[in-house]
């Protein structure tokens, strides 16, 4: 395409966008509440930031829980993630949604922590009862292949089994499953969170699901 024509087409579009850019920057009424809160937070308004936290804390906690595998760690990581987000707020360029950016910060915080711990050997006593969220305790079952799995479809226990399996998975598979099947993000959002292409998301997720499926069927948790 001749240069002049290319520039003309591109420039008209860009010029219009530049004008909208200017209007956006002039904080017109079109700015959403969330954008306002982000801008205020950038100016040092901690109350505004805490409002943002309130809107996202449950989701980030759920995310952290699936990464870390237990509530205590999830709690700590959730705090860490929001503090880190506050400190690095300037690096949020607005090219993704704020929520997606938060997921990215939280994912990195959790995966970094997991990496740190990987070296340490975690020995869990098999005789120790496993606490469920009710505070009730159930005996921890070693997965065996005999078909005694009738209770397993109770959601709470199933959640714990899934969590055990997730904890066995590699970080890249784990993130794919957590972000897609548990947090229900779109492929585009996952690509932004993991800073990769959509093609990579497709193949990672496919492989992760295959791994997960095999583990579930090995433990006879999936009919």
């Amino acid at each position, binding site marked *: 395409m001749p240069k002049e024509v290319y520039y003309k087409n591109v420039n008209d579009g860009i010029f219009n*966008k530049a004008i909208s850019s200017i209007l956006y920057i002039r904080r017109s009424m079109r700015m959403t509440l969330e954008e306002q809160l982000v801008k205020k937070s*950038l*100016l040092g*308004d901690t*109350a505004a930031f805490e409002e943002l936290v309130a809107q996202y804390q449950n989701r980030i906690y759920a995310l952290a829980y699936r990464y870390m595998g237990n509530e205590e760690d999830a709690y700590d990581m959730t705090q860490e993630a929001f503090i880190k987000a506050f400190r690095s707020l300037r690096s949020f360029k607005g090219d993704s949604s704020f929520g997606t950016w938060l997921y990215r910060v939280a994912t990195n915080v959790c995966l970094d922590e997991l990496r740190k711990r990987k070296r340490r050997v975690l020995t869990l006593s098999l005789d120790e009862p496993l606490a469920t969220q009710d505070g009730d305790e159930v005996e921890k079952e070693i997965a065996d292949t005999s078909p005694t799995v009738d209770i397993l479809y109770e*959601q709470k226990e199933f959640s714990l089994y899934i969590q055990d399996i997730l904890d066995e998975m590699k970080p890249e598979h784990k993130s794919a499953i957590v972000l897609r099947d548990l947090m229900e993000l779109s492929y585009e959002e996952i690509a932004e969170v993991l800073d990769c292409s959509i093609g990579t998301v497709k193949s990672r997720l*496919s492989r992760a699901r295959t791994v997960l499926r095999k583990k579930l069927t090995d433990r006879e948790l*999936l009919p």
Partner: protein
Amino acid sequence: MRCEQMRELLSPYMDQMTSEKETRMVEAHLVVCPECNRELEQLQRMVALMGNLDTPQLPEHFSADFHRRLMNEQPLIFRNSELKKPRKQAWIAAGVAGLALTVGVYASSLLPVGMVADLWQDKEDKQNKTTTVAVDDIIQRIQLWGHQDKNILPAEQIADKGTTAPGQEKVPTAGPASNEQPPAEAVPAKIQIEPKLADVFKSTIKVDNLNDSVSRVVQIAEANGAQARVTQAGNEVQALNGITREVSFKVSSEQVGAILKQLEAVGQAGMPTGDQVVYTEQYSEAVNQIQTLEKQICELDTCDEQSRINLQTELQIWRDKKLKLEKELQMATIKVQLVQEVNP
């Protein structure tokens, strides 16, 4: 299609993320292959199960805990919620902002005021640090610039205190240095103004010849009555693949639209992004200082000529400062990053 090829595609197919071609292939295969159908069903069941999982509830004390942690972060002097406590806050604010303003006065004797803000902006961009009011940055600058004009007495005191006592909330000595009155004297309630921000527009343009393009942008700047500054900006990702220069200049806000259009003729321009330079604290302090000084002048003994002269000199300084800020606020900074790609 063979079953092995299907394996990778079942997952995106289920999420409706396969291309048209892939979709047709998958569906054609599913018609004839019961194995793969079973696999797909199992996959769907698994994902459905995952979607139904409960997650534990976030404990209620999270907000309180987080609030405490957030407050322990580097103190932000101008939190909106805390301006309800005028006394202590105002003193610290007055001291710190007086510091900032005096730095500005120093700067204006050497550099254009805007360059202070520019330097600050660059520093923020490069470091991606905490979003604090730039108290520490300003204190570091004082240390860098060393001892300048010693004639302005209150400012010297601030400078000394500034280098020894960084602007933490807990340090009271930094407070009263901005004027010679003891803290017991009433400080008028701090005037609260809305944020004063000057716009900064950033545009990244890919060009074929860096030097030519730099000259063109400089010409555009000068044609619009601005003086351009050319630096090597190294903080953008594009710098990895090519060589870059950043040309920045200030124009009045109305000129921005036309200039951005002119810039697009220089090369392949990306969409401009916006930012702000925050002048709020400086402006707010100028306003407050002017009010304080005017009041002091009124309260003076009529025969106290010396004090009157001193105060009026100071008042004029602050008034000038305010005018300068107002001019700055009407200006917009345009930063053009030119990238010449080495590997097209």
